[in-house]
């Protein structure tokens, strides 16, 4: 039984200008102890997908899915109370901004022991002891004195370690890390990633690493899911995906990595993610795709099995017939396909 099963998930937000679909038809399976990288530009729906799994979609957002289970429990029908027993205990989440994600009015110790006392029923003393242990595990020096500190007295990196300590406090089966290193200094980023990976291995914990940084995923994930404008574009084993990307978007993302740049110039993807007012009719990536055709601009591709994973594209890069198909469908891409 998979740890997480999501089928056809969509999340919508009503706005002044109409309904904004932040997540559109996302399906996903995650096994115990697996590390999944979720990659995409900002606004691609990668965070919202995971917030939906956590049940943290803010009002007035609406969540729809054919299936949404965690550890065999149906999250679509679960009561609020049962869900609260799950979140923070079996599923935990850390966020992008450690400085604002901790409550400025309470001490580190209070915020850390709060989870332990709630989910593990520990008394003050036991919770305090465990909190010190946890701070040690996440590599915070002199943990005892840190318990009485307030978040603004610690650095961003330290606060992120506190967030991690809070998240792993109850030995969760799944940890969702939403851009855990984006707001941190480059030197600290590697430390935090190392820490997360060490903890993941020690505890055989499922880990979802949400990031816009392909490099972060390359170092950590077993499987990678690439999202664009609320949809999954490609989802495959990490080594395969990095060796031979099948979706033009994935290929473009990889080409934009500094270490892969050719001729000393960084590759970019022209254009921006479609917003509420310019959502294309066909493939959502078609306005920015080098290989777009009349067909791909009019017909939205389905997510289909491909090369050991899934892909949402009419013309996967590894398809032997793609050149002929593209010619047949009249290419209108931003550059001529070479």
């Amino acid at each position: 039984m998979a740890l997480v099963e999501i089928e056809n998930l969509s999340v919508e937000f009503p706005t002044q200008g109409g309904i904004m679909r932040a997540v559109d038809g996302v399906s996903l399976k995650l096994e115990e102890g697996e590390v999944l990288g979720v990659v995409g530009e900002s606004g691609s729906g990668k965070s919202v997908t995971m917030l939906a799994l956590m049940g943290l979609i803010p009002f007035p957002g609406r969540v729809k899915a054919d299936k949404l289970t965690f550890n065999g429990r149906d999250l679509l029908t679960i009561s609020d109370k049962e869900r609260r027993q799950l979140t923070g205990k079996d599923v935990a989440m850390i966020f992008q901004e450690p400085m604002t994600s901790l409550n400025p009015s309470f001490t580190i110790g209070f915020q850390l022991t709060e989870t332990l006392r709630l989910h593990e029923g520990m008394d003050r003393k036991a919770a305090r002891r465990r909190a010190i242990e946890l701070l040690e595990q996440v590599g915070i020096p002199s943990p005892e004195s840190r318990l009485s500190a307030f978040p603004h007295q610690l650095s961003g990196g330290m606060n992120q370690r506190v967030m991690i300590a809070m998240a792993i406090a109850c030995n969760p089966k799944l940890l969702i890390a939403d851009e855990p290193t984006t707001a941190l200094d480059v030197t600290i980023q590697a430390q935090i990633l190392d820490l997360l990976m060490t903890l993941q291995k020690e505890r055989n914990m499922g880990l979802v690493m949400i990031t816009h940084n392909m490099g972060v995923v390359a170092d950590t994930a077993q499987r990678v899911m690439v999202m664009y404008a609320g949809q999954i574009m490609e989802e495959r084993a990490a080594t395969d995906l990095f060796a031979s990307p099948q979706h033009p978007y994935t290929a473009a993302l990889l080409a934009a990595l500094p270490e892969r740049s050719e001729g000393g110039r960084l590759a970019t993807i022209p254009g921006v993610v479609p917003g509420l007012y310019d959502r294309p009719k066909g493939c959502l990536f078609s306005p920015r795709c080098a290989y777009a055709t009349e067909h791909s601009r009019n017909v939205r591709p389905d997510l289909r099995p491909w090369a050991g994973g899934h892909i949402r594209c009419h013309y996967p890069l590894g398809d032997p017939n793609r050149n002929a198909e593209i010619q047949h469908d009249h290419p209108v891409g931003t550059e001529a396909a070479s």
Partner: protein
Amino acid sequence: MAAPPFYVQPMLRFILTRVSLIIPTFLGITLLAFFLIRLVPGDPIETLAGERGIDPARHEQLRKEYGFDQPILVQYGIYLSRVLQGDLGKSMITQEPVITEFAALFPATIELALCAILFALILGLPAGIIAAIKRNSIFDHGVMGISLAGYSMPIFWWGLILILLFSVQFDLTPVSGRIDVLYYIEPITGFLLIDTLLSDEPEAFWSAVRHLILPTIVLGTVPLAVIARMTRSAMLEVLGEDYIRTAKAKGLSRFRIVALHALRNALIPVVTVIGLQIGVLFTGAILTETIFSWPGVGKWLIDAIFRRDYPVLQGGALLLGVVVMSVNLLVDLAYGLINPRIRHTR
């Protein structure tokens, strides 16, 4: 563990800075009072001395005493040193020192003001919190509508309407004063609610309570509206913060998130607003006391205007200004106490 908490030093510095910041304000208020009295038509010496038709010898003596033969800066210096010694002149009408009269009447105003702010808090905080949680509900719209009406209320009219309803129509509450005339209560604390309890007449307490109800509602209406609105908007802002999402991700109950994690942070701006309401409260007290013949400093000031009792007006306004300034300072310090970010930095 025996060492003093490491935040003592910055806290002390914070207090000292805030206290020193009110010195220019105090000087400004005294300057205003000093010049205003000189704008009053008529002989300034008679105005200041609170005596009319002074004989020339005494006039000359007073002229010297107030320093009218000296440069204006020296005159201000003399005035300032008198103020600092608590000498605010004496009333033209009663010949009592202004500060004595103020001290005798001030407890009545404080009692009314405290009851009003308590009334506003008890109703305003929960109303604002619930409105924020149930955003866009009928309750929310109701609270916002009523509070905007309260904020726009001409309270001098509101008092009359309440008298019309409760006193005239239903005969529930008395129309004026602090207590029925048949009781004599020895002033111990000056607060009738306490003094009546200390006296041997238990009914006197209820009489005092009944007299307090309408003035409290009238004076508390504007602060109630402001507190409800402010609590709601502070709560809404805090509920959108990242750390509330963290609290939800921890699986905390809704009640705990709202009552502990959100409220603690939302109270910071609310306390500031309550502090600012103290000034509004004294303004309101002038009107409320006039309507209900409440024997406090507000009514005393208005009476002084119509009796042309300028020393009382000058001294009373100065004292009220200083009181408001001090309350603002206390609120500022309280703000520092509940907000750890201020407590521990700078």
